[in-house]
């Protein structure tokens, strides 16, 4: 089983901008790529999972670095980013759109590029597809239950959430840090995630995630020529600090372990559903 999909290189990296690092989930790669894109005119608009009231997520077309920064950080709930893609090229009249998504959303983007049945004059305007690693996702009510019932922090007071080291961590605006065992969160997982066999957003130009790199850094898979050219420009411009993935701990082995875990577990679910006569994507 191929754990990562096709890629050219893997690196460990973080943004050099302190403002980005302060707000970012890990190394601030998505924010840095977007802000660099907007400032260098490589992109004229980007789709973000915006942070809404009550630590909810909602897709938004962002055209300024401030809007990008406001959306930084992981919200462990569904943000239907693809739903605003056509708006970005119509209402916002964007010519070079950056879009970020979970592996399933990146799959959706690749499909609409290849089969753009209801996407007039859209696919040629997609300038950069970024993917983020994803093990599974929660509905908003599910995330709320974990945060409020298990961690005991009100949604309005949440500063940051993070899944790492076997736990769901909640940081409040007032400095409290609480954790919930992942075992307690499983029942709130979106069940449609259980047939997903992509952990590292294998179809993106660039995919990034926390696993494999130290705290405050991100692991980046550079997959396409477009992605490679983009990252090279970022490094030349000095907005990214990079390290060889072999020189960082815990390194690629952990990414591989988690990826194969997800693939093997969800392959079983796919087989089970097929046996029951339930449909799976084909």
């Amino acid at each position, binding site marked *: 089983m191929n754990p990562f*999909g096709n890629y050219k290189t893997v690196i460990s990296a973080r943004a050099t901008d302190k403002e980005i690092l302060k707000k970012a989930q890990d190394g601030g790669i998505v924010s840095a790529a977007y802000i660099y894109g907007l400032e260098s005119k490589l992109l004229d608009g980007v789709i973000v999972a915006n942070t809404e009231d009550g630590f909810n997520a909602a897709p938004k077309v962002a055209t300024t670095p401030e809007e990008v920064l406001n959306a930084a950080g992981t919200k462990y709930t569904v943000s239907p980013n693809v739903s605003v893609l056509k708006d970005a090229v119509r209402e916002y009249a964007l010519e070079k759109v950056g879009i970020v998504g979970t592996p399933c959303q990146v*799959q959706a983007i690749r499909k609409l590029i290849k089969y753009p049945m209801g996407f007039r004059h859209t696919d040629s305007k997609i300038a950069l597809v970024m993917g983020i690693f994803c093990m599974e996702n929660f509905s908003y009510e599910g995330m709320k239950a974990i945060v409020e019932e298990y961690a005991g922090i009100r949604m309005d007071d949440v500063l940051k959430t993070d899944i790492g080291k076997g736990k769901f961590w909640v940081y409040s605006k007032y400095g409290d840090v609480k954790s919930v065992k992942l075992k307690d969160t499983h029942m709130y997982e979106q069940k449609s995630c259980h047939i997903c066999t992509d952990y590292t957003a294998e179809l993106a130009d660039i995919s990034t995630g926390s696993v494999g790199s130290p705290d405050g850094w991100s692991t980046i898979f550079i997959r396409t020529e477009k992605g490679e050219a983009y990252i090279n420009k970022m490094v030349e411009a000095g907005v990214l600090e990079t390290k060889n993935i072999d020189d960082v701990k815990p390194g690629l082995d952990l990414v591989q372990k988690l990826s194969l875990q997800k693939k093997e577990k969800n392959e079983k679910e796919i087989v089970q559903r097929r046996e029951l006569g339930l449909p799976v994507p084909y």
Partner: protein
Amino acid sequence: MVRIAHIHMSGCTGCLISLTDTYEKLLDILGAVELVYALTLADEKTEITETDDKILIERKIPENIDIALVEGSVCLDDHHAMDDILTTRKNSKIVVALGACAASGGVTRFARGGQMSQPSHASFAPIGDVIKVDLALPGCPPSPESIVNLITAALEGDMEYLEPFAEIAKIGKDACGCDVIKDVINKSLCMGCGTCAAACQVRAIEMVEGKPNINSEFCIKCGLCGAQCPRVRFPELLQKIE
């Protein structure tokens, strides 16, 4: 040279406009094919027969068509329309249902007669109800890019790319916003990407709590939401990004 025809049934010409909306790519296609029939774009041989009580005007759909792009649904109550669609099938190697009306009835699903000057013209059906359709391309209209991709793949004989369209021709006649409910949400497949909402051309789909909410009063049964959903069909070839 490949002989292509555009057959206009009960449609609005929007599908043909969408084809021409490809600008220079249309010229590439026209350079590679012979457009043998398209009432909107080219003169046709017209036969006029005058009798005592009426004047008969006939335009003949040519023989030996390689690809017939059929736009619009069939009015079962109009014998001219019935003749045209049957002739199209007889004369064509590949019949493409171009757009929602031809593929799934589209907005003509709501037609029910009772209007002058032909109040008896009440029954409109996707062309697949009357003839065998080889490929169906949903959309109202389908995007220019998707029309070009389909024609290009048909010219190149890229059956792998065309496979989803062949499948929609077989099973897509009842397309509706409900497809997303029945085939995706109800089957525990919807992960909330929002592609259906973006694809919908009448904004009948709103993402609520990370899932599509279908406003069926707005839905015009074009088939795009189900066709674009990556959790229904995700062809193998999409794995190849470079």
